[in-house]
């Protein structure tokens, strides 16, 4: 059994392992993002973000991060990138925009960083 060996003691810089602990923390935020698979729900969110977040009972930290479009804050508050991607879509952020926002780069700088690894 790997656990509680390597799997539990490795620290990967800049990387949050989305495990049970994070899932418990982020459940409300991720459930809200999952609801964005429906156009109707995306429109309801866009029409009144605060009311929509209240309806899904987001924590204060989660609401603040969403209001600030703070991706790292959302992850810290338990957000999972697969669900957050649907929220990023509403904000019209590309995957490279999201990469830039998290790494302190402009989108162009982030694209250059990707290209540099070829």
């Amino acid at each position, binding site marked *: 059994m790997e656990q509680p060996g390597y799997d539990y003691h490795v620290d990967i810089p800049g990387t949050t392992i989305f495990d049970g602990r994070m899932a418990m923390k982020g459940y409300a935020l991720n459930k809200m993002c999952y609801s964005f698979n429906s156009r109707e729900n995306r429109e309801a969110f866009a029409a009144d973000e605060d009311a929509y977040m209240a309806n899904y009972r987001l924590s204060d930290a989660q609401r603040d991060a969403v209001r600030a479009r703070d991706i790292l804050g959302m992850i810290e508050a338990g957000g999972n990138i*697969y669900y957050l991607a649907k929220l990023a879509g509403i904000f019209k952020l590309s995957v490279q925009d999201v*990469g830039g926002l998290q790494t302190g780069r402009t989108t162009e700088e982030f694209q250059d960083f990707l290209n540099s690894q070829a």
Partner: protein
Amino acid sequence: MARILGGITTSHIPAVGNAIAKNLQDDPYWKPFFDGYPKIHAWIKEQKPDVVINIYNDHGLGFFLDRMPTFAIGAAHEYRNEDEGWGIPELDPFPGAPELSWHIIESMVSDEFDITSCQELPVDHGFTVPMQLFWPGAPHNPDMPRAIPISANTVQHPIPTLKRALDFGKALRKAVLSYPEDIKVVVLGTGGLSHQLDGQRAGFINKEFDLYCLENIVSNPEVLTEISRLELVEKAGAQGTEFLMWMMMRGALGDDVTELTRNYHIPISNTAAGTLLLECA
């Protein structure tokens, strides 16, 4: 009896769906990626598989954290590609092969795989982009085989181990080969290679590790089972864990395979894109 013709791997980046919709295949950004596919088209035209088993990972369309299966197998008459939230054009439904699905589920549960069987399952870009890449115009390509989706959990840790993924493929092979109908099956492993979308390490790509995986998945997949799951996160990136799908595919091909084509390109979107066509002996 049923035969497995071979396996094909590809990344399944959502942007690819948009590039196809906009006909950007000859655009300088996209050309080196799309150049990996004509040989595969030719092979498919020649081999004409009857069924495609598409091993992918759902990204929050078919499953949520309320009930998150480790391994799910579709057993439906058709699979709808539904709205994922960011405006990829939705494709028409893919016809299923439920009799073979149930045969596989029966065999694998007997062999102690704890399958979640799915008689309704919306499929996302992880399933559809590879279909579009291999059968242009999918699902309306005249050679489009009937489909069986298989999804493994890479959203929520604990994800399955690399060994369990390879063993899953071996049990899948046994199941398919025992199907009494004379059909030809191709197995897809989609996702990867190295990429990470989240965190301060977003944009991480690891060419050296990808090339190690590409080499060993062909001829020595067992050695890859020594990689622990967190080591996979560390070396392939948080979403590079999708390589588990390649392991599942590889297990289904048996020991003796021939590599017919390989492509590797950095980057498509945030991802190191890898493509392999492996033919079974």
